[in-house]
């Protein structure tokens, strides 16, 4: 998808991630020793690290974008160059994610603007995860550089 194709207010369903006890512990062993400590205390159910919930959402975003690009490639369209993300703002997690939960991710375009570089535009997105009870488990805002169509250059 190019800058020109993005519509403000457009929401894209990205897919779901399941959080098993094993996956929560595996992330904890590598990055969040508090989870390992909770498991050692016999705490159940285990809550996932917020960063695990966010990273699993990134995976859904990358997969959704890959299938979009595959469709474009099949149609013989030019594929936009991918921009590296500069970061995010305002991350909140009103509800924890527990083992057995399934999180559905979506991304809504909040605003878009051109940049001083003719090749790139800026898109502001609101990224959201909800669990199977429709409770919000993750929300943050991100700004990404996205390639503009060559004919505008």
């Amino acid at each position: 998808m190019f800058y020109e194709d993005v519509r403000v207010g457009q929401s894209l369903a990205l897919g779901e991630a399941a959080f098993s006890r094993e996956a929560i512990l595996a992330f904890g062993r590598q990055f969040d020793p508090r989870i390992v400590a909770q498991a050692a205390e016999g705490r159940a159910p285990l809550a996932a690290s917020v960063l695990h919930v966010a990273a699993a959402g990134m995976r859904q975003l990358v997969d959704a974008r890959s299938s979009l690009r595959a469709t474009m490639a099949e149609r013989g369209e030019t594929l936009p160059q991918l921009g590296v993300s500069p970061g995010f703002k305002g991350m909140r997690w009103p509800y924890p994610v527990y083992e057995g939960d399934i999180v559905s991710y979506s991304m809504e375009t909040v605003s878009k603007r051109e940049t001083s570089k003719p090749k790139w535009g800026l898109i502001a997105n609101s990224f959201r995860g909800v669990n199977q009870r429709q409770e919000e488990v993750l929300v943050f805002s991100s700004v990404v550089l996205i390639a503009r169509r060559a004919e505008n250059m």
Partner: protein
Amino acid sequence: MPDPLYFEDFPLGAVIEYGGVDVSADEIVAFARDFDPQPFHTDEEAARAATGGLIASGWHTSALLLRMNCEAFMMRAAILEEAGVEEVRWERPVRPGDRLHVRRHTLAKRPREDRLSDGEVEFLYEVVNQDGVVAMTQRSWLLLKHRPQPFGN
């Protein structure tokens, strides 16, 4: 078990450094395969053209910051709540062979008027590589308990 760290243990304006993790190509690729499978994170060949070699997913750097924070103080801190992340910026790429540590600034402290037992502390974390380059920054709040006062004062 060492004493817990309370609200009072984080003086305003304090800057301290801690941590030290080596980042390998294998770890970069393994994390990206799970959570961020874009070519510049998973494929040395493709990364050479796009980003001058493999770079770590920003989420991977964030996860390494979490681990260093847990090991340095978060396991011991009297945290009531992680009150949100205001901003994360992935400023410079993290590459195989980099060694990262953390420089933590205590940016702001606010006691809560409705509750005398705890207060919020805002930290700025800089993830710094072996050349002193800041690869990532994060601003986030922790809700911490006050140090219990002995009776009879």
